[in-house]
């Protein structure tokens, strides 16, 4: 029997039960882009909130729109129109863009790549600077690849060619002793010197192998990432190169298992940009977006920082506190009574940005909010995790250690807009 003590009333509203009737994110055929039209009169049997008023072009005052609208298509198309309007401006209003993104980027319109690039700060606000920025970044990435992805054999060959030394021709006439020449900088394959390119190469092989293994295992169920097609193979190669370049440029954290999972949705979205001019450079663009994305929470990947104030343990502790604040009963039941240590489930939720907990398409929607919310990635992520716990509170409160752990490590399919709305409500310093 679920007690009502200490739980805010709105949580117990039947609206948040596990099978909501709204079908906002149910599968539907992508709506074509109609011109804005006034919403049709409500025909459904009474849903609790009244239908939204016709939208003016300017911003609305009420940011948190009810997420259970009856005329779903029209809302989607209106949202799309607003997006297009915001994106068409010469100087993009990021605040406005964030507000729109938190409602979920409409599928099928191909604007997600651009929106994500703006939110991650890859594209500047001023549209006129885009071409220049993109050019600069893309050639920078090519330079990285050139510098970092060569094996030592190729590096030495290039150095020698530029130094103009001659190589003996094998098949030319004449015979005689082959001349021995000095090696440059003491570089030879068996060198154990710390600065030796050969030594560094061999030390990196372990990382390279790990990256290779993980890339092959990424989303084996998706044709984009896996399988024998040359498309999948080239995508895997791109992922591999991005992670290798990142590892070499960041000797502090190198590569940690799981980074491939965080990279995958980014690359997927950018590679599927309907604008071919962008899709072709998806690898370079993804690299910088990945760096940006990771910069906020790379401390979570650093083993040495685990126990520090910025490490993963402290982040998980924040989640714990958040839960305690909003739903003390559930918190007590989970952590004290059934002793489900949040590290058992929240570790993967947080470090992998929920990519493992939901389907790929749901994940993209969650990432819209994660990237778009002005509160920042970590805060938003923690709120969503807290909402995930609250949404299944009935099952958790009824379960013991095993049942709860099983549930949280295999989080059930949920209505995402529902989840995001609950997360939204958890905003603010003190919920009453």
């Amino acid at each position, binding site marked *: 029997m679920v007690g009502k003590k200490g739980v805010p009333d709105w949580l117990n509203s039947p609206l948040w039960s596990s099978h909501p009737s709204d079908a906002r994110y149910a599968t539907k055929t992508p709506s074509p882009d109609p011109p804005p039209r006034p919403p049709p009169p409500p025909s459904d049997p009474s849903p609790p909130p009244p239908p939204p008023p016709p939208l003016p072009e300017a911003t609305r005052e009420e940011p948190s729109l009810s997420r259970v609208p009856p005329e779903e298509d029209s809302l989607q198309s209106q949202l799309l129109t607003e997006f297009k309007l915001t994106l068409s401006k010469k100087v993009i209003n990021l605040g406005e863009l964030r507000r729109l993104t938190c409602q979920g980027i409409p599928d099928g319109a191909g604007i997600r790549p651009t929106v994500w690039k703006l939110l991650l700060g890859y594209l500047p606000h001023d549209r006129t600077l885009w071409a220049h920025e993109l050019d600069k970044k893309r050639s920078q990435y090519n330079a990285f690849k050139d510098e970092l992805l060569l*094996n*030592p*054999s*190729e590096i*030495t*060959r290039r150095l*020698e060619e530029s130094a103009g*030394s001659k*190589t*003996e*021709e*094998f*098949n030319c*006439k*004449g*015979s*005689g*002793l*082959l*001349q*021995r*020449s*000095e*090696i440059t900088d*003491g570089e*030879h*394959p*068996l*060198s*154990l010197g710390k600065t030796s390119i050969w030594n560094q190469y*061999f030390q990196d*092989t372990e990382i390279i192998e790990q990256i290779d293994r993980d890339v092959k295992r990424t989303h084996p169920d998706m044709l984009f990432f896996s399988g024998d097609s040359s498309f999948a193979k080239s995508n895997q190669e791109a992922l591999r190169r991005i992670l290798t370049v990142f590892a070499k440029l960041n000797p502090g954290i190198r590569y940690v298992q799981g980074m491939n999972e965080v990279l995958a949705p980014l690359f997927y979205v950018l590679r599927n940009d309907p604008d071919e001019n962008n899709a072709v450079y998806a690898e370079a663009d993804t690299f910088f977006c990945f760096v940006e994305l990771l910069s906020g929470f790379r401390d979570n990947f650093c083993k040495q920082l685990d126990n520090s104030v910025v490490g993963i343990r402290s982040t998980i502790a924040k989640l714990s506190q958040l839960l305690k604040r909003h739903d003390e009963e559930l918190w007590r039941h989970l952590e004290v009574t059934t002793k489900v240590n949040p590290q058992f489930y929240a570790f993967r939720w947080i470090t992998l940005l929920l990519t493992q907990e939901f389907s790929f398409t749901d994940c993209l929607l969650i990432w819209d909010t994660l990237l778009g919310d002005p509160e920042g990635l970590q805060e938003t992520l923690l709120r969503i995790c807290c909402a995930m716990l609250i949404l299944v509170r009935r099952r958790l409160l009824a379960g013991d250690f095993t049942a709860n752990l099983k549930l949280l490590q295999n989080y059930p399919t949920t209505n995402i807009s529902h989840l995001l709305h609950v997360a939204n409500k958890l905003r603010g310093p003190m919920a009453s």
Partner: protein
Amino acid sequence: MVLVLALGDLHIPHRAPDLPAKFKSMLVPGKIQHIICTGNLCIKEVHDYLKSLCPDLHVTRGEYDEDTRYPETKTLTIGQFKLGLCHGHQIIPWGDLDSLAMLQRQLDVDILVTGHTHQFKAYKHEGGVVINPGSATGAYSSITYDVNPSFVLMDIDSLRVVVYVYELIDGEVKVDKIDFKKTATANASQ
């Protein structure tokens, strides 16, 4: 980029107890893809040690090898190059470059690796290149006592080979290299 270690004439335990320490510290597993050994290891322990450095080991028989099953000659293809292996005590006069060139033409290889003289040599003729990695332990030979330990590491990269020569002179490891490539037209049979 394929790394091939060529060495031989260790004569362990009869003429030398072990490889020099400075060589041993450099030869670690995981870096080398193939090992070709001219022969005269002489015992199984040396074979096992080499096998631990790299699973792809090729050995030809030297006159003092205790394992009689090694072949007299061996050929293998690595990348674009055909390599031949023979200890060399069978080729008379020992170390004679013209006679070795004849063997090379018989085996039809680009690079012939041979030993027995315990002296490093790298020689080019119309048929190809002959490389003698010397003795990896510095064991005395049938000809001379004055032997510096040496071995060879080849970096084969498509049509180009860089031969790194490792020699222990006065207790210090000296490394030199030899660079050569072959033209694609020479490879008529694809």
